[in-house]
């Protein structure tokens, strides 16, 4: 079983990396980009019997810092 963990900065948390990407896109001549937020995608290859609770605990205990980040778990068959 595989799981994809999407880690994103919470709203209101400054994202200088996203800002730099935004500027670079504008530099390439792409108009109409209102905002850019950068995050992380972490792919986990898991034993089939891994519980949802364990995956959630992995996110809370290490993969995301919930002071500043949100996470979303997407299980892939």
């Amino acid at each position, binding site marked *: 079983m595989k799981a994809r963990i999407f880690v994103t900065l919470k709203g209101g*948390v*400054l*994202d*200088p*990396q996203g*800002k730099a990407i935004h500027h670079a896109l504008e530099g390439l001549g792409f108009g109409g980009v209102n905002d850019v937020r950068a995050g992380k995608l972490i792919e986990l290859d898991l034993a089939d019997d891994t519980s949802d609770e364990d995956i959630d605990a992995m996110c809370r205990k*290490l993969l995301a*810092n919930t002071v*500043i980040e949100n996470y979303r778990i997407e299980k892939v068959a």
Partner: protein
Amino acid sequence: MKSAVIVFPGSNCDRDLAVAFEAATGSKPAMIWHRDTDLPADIDLIGVPGGFSYGDYLRSGAMAARSPVMQAVAQAATRGAFVLGVCNGFQVLTESGLLPGALLRNAGGHFVCRDVPLTVENAQSAFTSRYDAGETIHFPVAHHDGNYFADDATLDRLEGEGRVALRYAENINGSARNIAGILNDGGNVLGMMPHPERVIEPAHGATDGKRLFDGLVEGLMARA
């Protein structure tokens, strides 16, 4: 007086911190590898040094905060041992939950490496007792992720409880309320981005940091 400096793979200010501890306490600190699960019994003072532990993988300080030795550090802190986290050490302390908040990428996106003026906000703590409240001191900073963040309620609580130890006298990295260093609720854990261990002898060009270490030792002696 027993002191220790934690060493993670990628720490690079561990020996500087050890020199500062030795100069203040008169004895060499134990250098404790991150995989160790025990600290010397009755440890008085623990340093969590600057550097790039685990290559800053995932988030600065994230991996180090989950290393075996940090459980022993947390237990020692609960017991009342003094813990000083500098730069990456501050990031490790927030990631491990010993201090609230988080350190984000600098607002300007740049690594900041220079001497900065700091205002001593709380001169009552053991770490800051040799300074005067409101005094301006100068420590060097060298960091990319020093932008202190916490929600407003946490910031208000820190301010209300006198736990903002040091504040930048100018905005260098976007830190909330210009916070440069904070204390835990017991006053025995200090995390700070600036480097006091880099200004402890005249050859460094300044000695503002020496008083922090001397004050700590004085606090420990008073307690013994």
